[in-house]
């Protein structure tokens, strides 16, 4: 392309090494890939195939009697018909949580990246610090905070934001709150990384060119932070959708998400074909959403 003719290029590579060394250097990238590829093959691809096979087993089998491979594609519509509310709820809850997390996380990441000065590192540690304790313990702590006898509920009842017997725990609110809280750092960190790279001189230039602070944000800051927004959104949304701990600890069966159903299919009801089929349905739905999202958002930086 003629475009390339004008691009300043760094001085050319030194002449290619002679044949023998060239052969080895061509192999080198594959050798470097080998350990990771082997890991993925053993711990990701093979289990995935096994899971795919399990999703097509005869549903009338059981662990004690054994399963027969009958290519039972009917497992999929059956599972969907039975559990579509939980699947829909998963996406609904994590979508709401995502919006909340973006509303909180963007200003937070922006503040840390552009305005925090010497507090930057401390604040970053504060964002990551909760991860030093277990996910489970933190969610249990929320259970205490939101409990009916806790001060939060007491206060809300006193100011009549909650009715006399109103509660927070075991409501959709608690589950969404738990999801928002638990996955917020996954959103904030990539956002921070992209906002930290933002050159403040670009905002000066925008301001010099008649952009009000709001316009400058909309036309410069936001577009330049889109790779961070997209990466953060994916890192938040994918695990949040598959999560079952928050619904389990902070909700009731009425708030159960698809993760809870898969959990019980494998560990309680021991219905392997159904658990596997639901897992694949969830995976397919997430992949479809991510694909559409990336096509719409259209960034080369993430993929």
């Amino acid at each position, binding site marked *: 392309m003629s475009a390339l003719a004008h691009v300043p290029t760094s001085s050319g590579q030194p002449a290619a090494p002679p044949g023998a060394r060239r052969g080895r250097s061509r192999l080198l990238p594959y050798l470097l890939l080998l350990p990771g590829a082997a890991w993925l093959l053993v711990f990701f691809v093979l289990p995935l195939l096994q899971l795919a096979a399990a999703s097509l087993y005869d549903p009338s089998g059981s662990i004690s009697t054994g399963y027969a491979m009958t290519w039972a594609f009917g497992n999929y519509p059956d599972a969907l018909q039975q559990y579509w509310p939980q699947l829909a709820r998963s996406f609904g809850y994590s979508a709401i949580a995502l919006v909340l997390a973006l509303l909180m996380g963007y200003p937070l990441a922006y503040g840390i990246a552009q305005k925090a000065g010497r507090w930057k590192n401390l604040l970053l540690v504060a964002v990551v610090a909760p991860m030093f304790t277990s996910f489970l313990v933190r969610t249990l702590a929320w259970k205490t905070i939101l409990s009916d006898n806790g001060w939060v509920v007491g206060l809300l009842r006193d100011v009549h934001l909650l009715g006399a017997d109103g509660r927070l725990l075991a409501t959709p609110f608690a589950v969404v709150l738990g999801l928002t809280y638990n996955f917020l750092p996954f959103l904030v960190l990539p956002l921070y990384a992209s906002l930290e790279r933002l050159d403040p001189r*670009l905002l000066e230039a925008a301001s*010099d060119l008649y952009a009000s602070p709001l316009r400058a944000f909309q036309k410069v800051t936001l577009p330049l932070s889109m790779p961070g927004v997209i990466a953060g959104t994916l890192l938040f949304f994918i695990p949040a959708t598959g999560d079952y701990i928050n619904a389990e600890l902070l909700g009731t069966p009425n708030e159960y998400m698809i993760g809870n159903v898969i959990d019980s299919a494998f560990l309680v009801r021991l219905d392997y074909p159904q658990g596997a089929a639901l897992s694949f349905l969830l995976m397919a739905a997430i992949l479809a959403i991510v694909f559409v999202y990336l096509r719409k958002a259209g960034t080369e930086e993430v993929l």
Partner: protein
Amino acid sequence: MGHETPAGDLRLANLTKRFGVFTAVDDLSLTIPQGSFFALLGASGCGKTTTLRMIAGLEEPTSGQVLLGDRDIAGLRPYKRPVNTVFQSYALFPHLDIHENVAFGLRRRGIRKVTDQVERMLSLVQLEGYGRRKPAQLSGGQQQRVALARALINHPQVLLLDEPLGALDLKLRRQMQIELKRIQTEVGITFVHVTHDQEEAMTMADTVAVMNAGRIEQLGAPADLYEYPATAFVANFLGQSNLLAGEAAGHSGDDVLVTAHGARFSVPAGRARADHGSVFLGVRPEKLHLVAGPDQVPAGHQHLGGVVSDASYVGVSTQYLVRTPWGSELSAFAANSGVGGRLPVGTPVTAHWDPRHAFLLPRAAGEDDQTSPLLDEPPVGALS
């Protein structure tokens, strides 16, 4: 209305900027006439960029006024000022193509049809057909021209240029200097150009203000500044000077008499910034001529003796250092015009000058001779 200043003059009145205890700009007052090419020249840290940023609105003055015509714009937010800037780093928007970069200012002011104006502006800076490229696909010189187009398209009353050529290599810089001057003449907008490169300031600007430590040392046409500097700082910053420490001994007719290192000299009164007390007697190196002995000094010239201590051949000229009996090294440039031979190191010489080319500057008592050590300045700008 009814004031003396024309509508478009830019005036800075008692402008001061302090950062904590550091005074970056110190009670600066100056008037920049509408349509002129004005250069603020100074070393880094002298306050020139801070001054520029206060005009742009990117820095708030501690005190003082920025007036455009009769209007004080010092309190206006940058996006409300009829002023645009070409930034040192260009600050092009990396996510927008060249067309949208140039159209940015127009769009923010709500102008819908921008294509024609953008095309015209791109052709003014000789970048037709580059509209769909991203800034990263252009060379430094091309990016610089996009930055210029992006600012000029808004027809600002004043265009501010913050070391715009600093990142370019020498040859490109020369080329852009000529181009900038051409564009300024073409559009007739007031240009305020900040630079630390004296040659750049002198080639382009109608008026140069030399800044030092937050103040203006001298302001004037480039030739006036060079031929008759007001302070030792200007004499050394703008080109090179031989400054001999001496004592002025009053007038004699139209001349001021000076004693320096035991010899008596004189300077026309019109070229003396001081006529008593401690002074510097200044002569530019190219105005200092070397001959074999006092008998060859032309009538009316003044002279002193020395020994050639260094000779550097630089093509157009040979640059000599002459060691005086009291140990100072004067520099003298001799044009390689084919007249006269080269003087080897160690030759005793007589350096002479026309007193009408010398100048007298005030000197703080105790300051010794100031002579430029050697040769051309290193190419500036490469590091900025």
